[in-house]
Each structure stands twice: as structure tokens, then as C-alpha cells.
């Protein structure tokens, strides 16, 4: 009995000592990441994971990062986030649009834990949102696609009908149409972020129906693999550079670089300066990078695309600059008018010229 009490006391002392040590600033900050796909998808989740590794690199043993892959967007996500919070994570990045409500729900239960939700629009005292202006990259893709297509048909593999995806379609179409009035967009909604077989089938279908440029808003390299098998078809890396297709169909890419933001936010939690923000950065801060435009693109088109990138970097050009009408012909932006972030963030309509309906 006595022995046991002594042991307990010793344990308590040890505990006090260690927690004392923690308070001295040796405490490891535990940071959680919730991924929608696998870290080997070569696209969206791959880049988030690369940025997680950058956090590890930047803070060394002051930080411990944990992650969970392939978490479904729904009730399961709440379970995963709760688990992370219970296991001591003080900052949790939830990296897909569909985690929006789960993040808000779990955040309400853990007021001491900070949450960062990617691409959503709901915030709370301990929930920030962050996203990148991918539509800037889409503008470049649209320009190249419009110039390069010979069939005037551009295939677009869309994932879910959410504002981020719709913005991308509108931006790409706007800039393709501007340089090629005959251009036509064929859009397939895959209703998945990561399903290589379905993405490959979608790309195949679009090519069979005459598209010679494939744009994708899904996460894997499967569409590029299919494009590589069809001579004369080009595509773009999505979310990641997908550089392994540089010798083949990939002519450029949109790269999501989350590392600076993640490092920034981890530091803010360490310093106690974290507060709710709604970050939406683009080419200007480097959150959106445009991957190398390959030699498959003629020099003049490449120069135009690079000029556009530069204009967006300096803020001289906004991809959504009027005049732009909505699909039904009603005016949206007057001549010279620039879209406001609120409308862009909740964009749920096609612009004039696109055919078909957005699935509900």
C-alpha cells in the first residue's frame, strides 16, 4: 500500500515536472490535417501534405503533425476531427469544401482548438477559412486552351457544383471565348474528387466527342494519362505540377502552395496571436503558382499567357472584369467593373455562352 502511494506520488511529481517543462516552451504543438483524398493522389491532397511536411521542416521538434487520409465529407469527418482534438491537437486544418459544417460543429465543442477550413465560407471565433484564387490560374488555362484548340471543343471534368468549381469553369470559358469566339465547353460533372477510373473514363469520353483540350477539377493524374494516349490532346496539371507529364500532354499547371500559409498559422498559434481570418490569396502571394508552360505552346501564346500572369500578380488585371453577362443574358458586370469577392465566393451561375445547367 505504502509502496503504491509512493509510486503514485513519484508519478505525480514526474508529471508535474514534465508539465513544468512543457510550460517552459518545450511543448510540442500538435497540428492535425484532415485530407479528402490520399496523399498519393498526385494533386490536391498531395500538395496539402507537401505543405504539412514544410511545417515539420520549419518548426522541427517544436511541432508534431498528424493527418488522416481519405476522410469522407460528412459525419465521418466530424468523428475524425473530434478524435484529433481529443488527442491534443491545438490547430486542425480541414482541407476540403465538404468539411465546412463538420468543422463548424466540432469547433463549437472545442473552443480552445483552432480550426482552419479550406475553400469554405463559414467562420467562427476559432474557425478561419483559407482558399486560393484558382480562377486566376483558370484564366491562363482558358487563354491557352482557346488558342490551342483545333476542334474548338474543350472538355472540362468538374467535380462538385460548388462555387470554387463554377468560378473555375467561368474563368476558363471567359478567357477561351475571348481569344476564340467559336470555342465550346463540354462539361462532365464527376461528383467525386478522386476516382481515377471515372476521371479517366470522363477524359476518354470528352476526347471521343471531339475535345482536344482537357481541363480538370478533379484530383488525380488519370485524365492526363488518357490525354497522353491520344495524339494532339493537351491538358493541365491540377493542384500540383504533375510534371511527370511534361513530355506529354501537360502544357502548364495550377499549383497550390499552402506551405507559407500553414507555417504562418502554426506560428500564430505558438505566439498566441491567432485570430479568425478569411484568407483568399492568389498569384500575388504565391498561393497560386502557374507551372512551367512547356514548349508545346507556341512562343507568342506563351508570352501572352505570361503577360496575363504578370498582370494578375501586380493586380493590374482581374480575370472577372466586365462586361460579363450571366448565362440567361442578364448583365452581371458592366464595362470595366470588377467582380466583388462576395459574389465570387458564392458564385452559383454560369456566364453567358456556356451551355447546360449546373446540377443542383
Amino acid at each position, binding site marked *: 500500500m505504502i509502496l503504491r502511494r509512493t509510486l503514485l506520488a513519484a508519478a505525480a511529481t514526474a508529471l508535474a515536472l514534465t508539465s513544468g517543462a512543457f510550460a517552459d516552451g518545450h511543448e510540442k504543438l500538435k497540428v492535425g490535417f484532415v485530407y479528402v483524398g490520399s496523399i498519393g493522389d498526385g494533386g490536391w491532397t498531395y500538395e496539402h501534405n507537401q505543405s504539412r511536411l514544410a511545417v515539420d521542416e520549419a518548426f522541427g521538434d517544436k511541432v508534431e503533425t498528424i493527418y488522416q487520409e481519405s476522410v469522407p465529407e460528412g459525419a465521418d469527418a466530424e468523428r475524425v476531427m473530434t478524435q484529433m482534438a481529443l488527442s491534443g491537437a491545438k490547430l486542425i486544418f480541414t482541407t476540403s469544401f465538404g468539411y465546412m459544417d463538420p468543422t463548424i460543429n466540432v469547433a463549437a465543442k472545442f473552443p480552445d482548438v483552432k480550426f482552419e477550413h479550406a475553400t469554405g465560407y463559414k467562420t467562427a471565433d476559432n474557425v478561419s477559412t483559407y482558399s486560393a484564387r484558382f480562377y486566376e490560374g483558370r484564366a491562363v488555362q482558358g487563354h491557352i486552351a482557346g488558342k490551342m484548340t483545333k476542334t474548338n471543343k474543350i472538355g472540362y471534368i468538374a467535380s462538385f457544383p460548388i462555387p470554387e468549381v463554377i468560378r473555375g469553369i467561368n474563368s476558363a470559358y471567359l478567357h477561351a471565348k475571348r481569344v476564340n469566339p467559336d470555342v465550346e465547353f*463540354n462539361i462532365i460533372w464527376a461528383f467525386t474528387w478522386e476516382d*481515377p477510373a471515372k476521371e479517366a473514363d470522363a477524359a476518354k469520353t470528352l476526347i471521343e466527342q471531339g475535345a482536344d483540350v482537357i481541363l480538370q477539377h478533379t484530383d488525380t493524374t488519370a485524365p492526363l*494519362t488518357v490525354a497522353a494516349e491520344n495524339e494532339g490532346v493537351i491538358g493541365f496539371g491540377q493542384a500540383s505540377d504533375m510534371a511527370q507529364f511534361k513530355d506529354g500532354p501537360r502544357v502548364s499547371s495550377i499549383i497550390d502552395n499552402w506551405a507559407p500559409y500553414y507555417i504562418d498559422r502554426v506560428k500564430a498559434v505558438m505566439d498566441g496571436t491567432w485570430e479568425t481570418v478569411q484568407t483568399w490569396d492568389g498569384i500575388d502571394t504565391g498561393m497560386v503558382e502557374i507551372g512551367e508552360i512547356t514548349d508545346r505552346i507556341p512562343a507568342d501564346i506563351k508570352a501572352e499567357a505570361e503577360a496575363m500572369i504578370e498582370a494578375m500578380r501586380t493586380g493590374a488585371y482581374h480575370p472577372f472584369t466586365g462586361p460579363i453577362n450571366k448565362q440567361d443574358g442578364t448583365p452581371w458586370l458592366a464595362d470595366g467593373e470588377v467582380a466583388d469577392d462576395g459574389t465570387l465566393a458564392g458564385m452559383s451561375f454560369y456566364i453567358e455562352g456556356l451551355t447546360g445547367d449546373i446540377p443542383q
Partner: protein
Amino acid sequence: MDWAAINPAFYVASVMVAATPLLLAAIGELVVEKTGVLNLGVEGMMIIGAVCGFITAVETGSPSLGFVGGALGGAALSVVFAVLTQFFLTSQVPTGLALTLFGLGASAMVGQSYVGIVPPKMPQLMSGAQLNAFERIVLGHDAMLYIGLAIPVAVWAVLRFSRLGLILRAVGEDHNAAHALGYKVMWIRFGAIVFGGACAGLGGAYLSLVRVPQWTEGMTTGAGWIALALVVFASWRPLLIILGAYIFGGIAILQLNLQAAGSTIPVEYLSMSPYVITIFVLVLLSALHKYGISRAQAPAMLGRSFHASN
């Protein structure tokens, strides 16, 4: 919408490619179930087949060896199931589920360094843009697709006409009687399970070597479960497996074609239609059975363990 945009020859050719992984996995599972074993690990064996086939093809540079690798990988995983269920008499349902989970995890680990690699291309009998409709549909494929079509026919012939088929069916319909006749129930089932694993592995390899072709974690995305449903859909008749797989593949490709051509039919209806058809067929089959129009097709011993002491 623009119907002219859909080229029927391209469409049928794509359906054949999309249906082949399902067909291969389903015909293997059919044989397994015919001997009275329910292996829910098809998804796991497929993904192991996908990764093993991919790695073999990349390392050897030969897609044909890739398929051998895929079949061996699927078969190896099924041996685990066979040993557990036949010798240790574990319950088949949880063992199969565990096999799926294990397969998904193990394949992700093994395949880590193979992400983003383009595998050697499986040669087609005829290829190119100038093929006419007949050539594209009948000749424009790789050898594995034709083998995939031949396997169900062979299985049908064996089950129906051969002594081996009779033994397999006997084990599945009444294992005690088969045992009493001197057949080694456990080993016959063992063999059937390994055949099923090899077929599932081939299906997975077809996915990673021909249909996509690349390796991505979890790339089967439920194809194994559809294969399981197909066996029931086909009411355990080998030739109906071909029909079922082509219906599933056909609708999956059709919905993409309709979308690309600007159809106004909501995507959701098209996406759910294969499953609605499955439920409809199941109801139809059980109704037919109830009114005595067709006999029960499920093997009587399905899912039941056998031990000689029973």
C-alpha cells in the same frame, strides 16, 4: 442536346473496357460462391491485383507479365482468406471484410513509390483513329479483354458439362454429401477461392494497366462491391455475368457521354440507375422464385463453414 456527338462505335468500345474489370472480378467470385464460400474481400484482392500488376509491368516493362503479377497478387491474398476460413473455420463474412481492409491498406503501402508513373502500354490488336466501327468494337482491344470474355464462357462450360463442374456444384449445394462421397471439400473450396482471387487480381490489374492506366491508392473505388452485386444480379449464371457487367459499364459510360453532349437529364438519375436496376432485378428474381417460376440460384451452402466432424 447533341446526340450526334456520341459516336456509337467509340461508346461500345469504351463500355467494353469499363466492363472488363467488373467482369473478371465477378466471374471469379461466382466460382467461389458456387462452392458455397462467400468471399467479401473482392475489393481487397482487386486492389492488390492492381498494385502488383502495375509494379510487375513497370519493373519488367511487359504488361503481359503485369497481368500475371496481378493474378498472383490477388491469388496470394485469397490464400490468406482460404487458410483462415477453411482450416481455422473463421466466419466468412468478417474474414472477407478484413481482407478488403487489409488489401486497401497494404496496396497503398506497397504502391507508394509507384505513384505518377505511366505503365508500359498493353498492345491492341488494331489501333488508330482511322478504324471503322467494326474494327474498333471487335478488334480494337488488348488481348486481356478477349480473355476476360472467354473466362465466363469457359466457366459456364466447365460448370455445366464437366465432372469438375459437378464436383464444384456438389460442394456448394451439399458439402456433407460431397464429403460422404469422398471429395475433399476443404481443398476444393481452397482451389475455388484461389481461382477467385486470381480473377479479382486480373480485374484490378486491368484497371491499373489498361482502363486508367496508372496507380493511385484506393483506385478500385468500390468496383469489388459492384462485382459482388453482379454475381447476385446474374443469379449465379456465368454468362449473365457478361450481360450484367456490360449493363453496369454501359450506364457508367453513357452518363458521361450524355453529360458531355449536353443532356438535360440530371446526373443523379444516371448515376444511381445501375443500383436501381440491381435492386429491381433482385426483387424480380425473388418474386419469380416465390411463385415457382424459377428455381433458387444461390448455392445452398453459401457462407457456411464445413468441418469433417459435422
